[in-house]
């Protein structure tokens, strides 16, 4: 069964089209990475899949249901790029993670023991259980990112959607992150993530979709694990790669050269 199916999708803001005719699928249990340079449209692509950005043309199905009719949001766990800007009102790690249970219970239900257990389990999975009562603002950037993945895991989703999960995250948190995603996948979960660089997530990826200037430039086998840096696919995604003459290179160097 396909978990996410995007066919001939086009997306634009203010009359300017950002994604043109994009099609790809995520199968059950698959880990798919959307790769691309900054501004390639990869974040717009997942925001469109989640319904945060309207679709101009084409179709998106989630778990076999057209996105417009899709109601079972508890099956999807969204991990945004960062925690919203702090407004000064404190919130504990546990309170933020508990938000992840709302998709399951709805807004009229009182919190139950199952919710508390799920919050503790999710925090254990990302290695932050000891910080459950600390204000989120006292955590490092990487720990905040792990809090967000715990929030998504707390809802016990079937699909995780992550936007640049490892951007600006310290190495220790990246490893903890990769381990949590690995465990999620081993229980049958599917993962769709957007990344600029894969880092420790590389071994998890089944398939890579490379977005370049609003189109899919490459769908194929994932870049090989560390140690196989000579693999040709690796060059497509490495941010410091030499521009490829084929035009499917997504390295920012091609834009730097244009300046």
């Amino acid at each position, binding site marked *: 069964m396909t978990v996410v199916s995007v066919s001939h999708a086009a997306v634009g803001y203010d009359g300017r089209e950002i994604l043109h005719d994009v099609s790809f699928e995520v199968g059950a249990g698959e880990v798919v990475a959307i790769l691309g340079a900054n501004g390639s449209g990869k974040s717009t692509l997942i925001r469109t899949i*989640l*319904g*945060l950005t309207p679709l101009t043309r084409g179709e998106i199905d989630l778990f076999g249901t057209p996105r417009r009719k899709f*109601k*079972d*949001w*508890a099956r*999807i766990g*969204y991990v*945004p790029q960062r*925690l*919203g800007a702090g*407004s*000064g*009102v*404190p*919130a*504990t790690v*546990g*309170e*933020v993670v*508990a*938000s*992840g*249970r*709302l*998709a399951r219970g709805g*807004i009229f239900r009182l*919190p139950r023991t199952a919710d508390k257990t799920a919050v503790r389990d999710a925090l254990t999975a990302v290695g932050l259980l000891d910080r459950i*009562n*600390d*204000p989120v603002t006292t955590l490092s950037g990487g720990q905040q990112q792990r809090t967000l993945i715990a*929030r998504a895991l707390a*809802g016990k989703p079937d699909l995780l*959607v992550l936007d640049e999960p490892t951007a600006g995250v310290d190495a220790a948190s990246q490893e903890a992150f990769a381990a949590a995603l690995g465990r999620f996948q081993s229980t049958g979960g599917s993962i769709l993530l957007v990344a600029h660089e894969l880092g420790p997530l590389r071994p998890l990826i089944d398939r890579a979709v490379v977005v370049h200037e609003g189109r899919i430039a490459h769908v194929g086998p994932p870049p090989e694990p560390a140690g196989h840096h000579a693999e040709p696919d690796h060059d497509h995604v490495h941010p410091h790669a030499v521009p490829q003459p084929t035009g499917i290179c997504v390295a920012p160097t091609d834009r730097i050269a244009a300046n």
Partner: protein
Amino acid sequence: MMRALMGALIIGLAAPALGIYLVQRRLSLIGDGIGHVALTGVGVGLLLNQSPVLSAVIVAAIGAVGVELIRERGRTSGDLALALLFYGGIAGGVVLVALSDDANSNSLVQYLFGSLITTSPEDIAVIAVLGAAVLIAMVAFRPALFAVCNDEEYARVSGLPVRALNIVMAVTTAVTVTIAMRTVGLLLVSALMVIPVAAAQQVTRGFRTTMAAAMVIGLVAAGAGVVVSAEADTPPGATTVILALAVFVAITIGAAGWRIVRRRSHPPHEVEPPDVVLQKV
């Protein structure tokens, strides 16, 4: 006096319960703006010889929902649209009150700065019912409202009825502003929503504890405000706000002092050893 105290205590409890969500969304001043709009409602009520509280609730609710729709559309033109709405609201209110039979400066001041002493038993009944409704809504929907205010996009992807919750918040803001106008007045109403929250968050660590502490501070400031104003013969609304500010200053200074004492008694956190060997010279 008893009636005045009751009204003040209800507002003292309800206003911060709502205010915490407004502060979390960086909409601390929205209550002030809705207060301006509510004045037009008061004018409409006086002009039609109807209850000004009722017409103020209706007009303020329409204004608050309008503000919410403007906010949802995008932020660039929102700021200007809000300014137009607020000044239109206060100007409309002043003109309408002047046109009504009640036209004297007293009736305007009574709504702008509050007038607990002239509160009738019917007013108290309205304040009690609406205040209880606000309190129940804010406490019962805390997880959902927290999620929406903390990360609106995440709430949307969770399938929460984000727009409905935002409209509930907008209407609740309008209701709170209107019932508080008899206590602290339309120009100071925002203070009771925001200052207790600002004071509480100096020392709290979580959202739930901040909410509880803010409600206690609001309750104490409102109660003390009525008692002190009766003793010192000062306007109750302004007295309440000054007391709330005093609590804020006291807590802020106290918290800073406590941090200094703790830092002295506990040496600073051990720093992780560096990854490289540093040679001592």
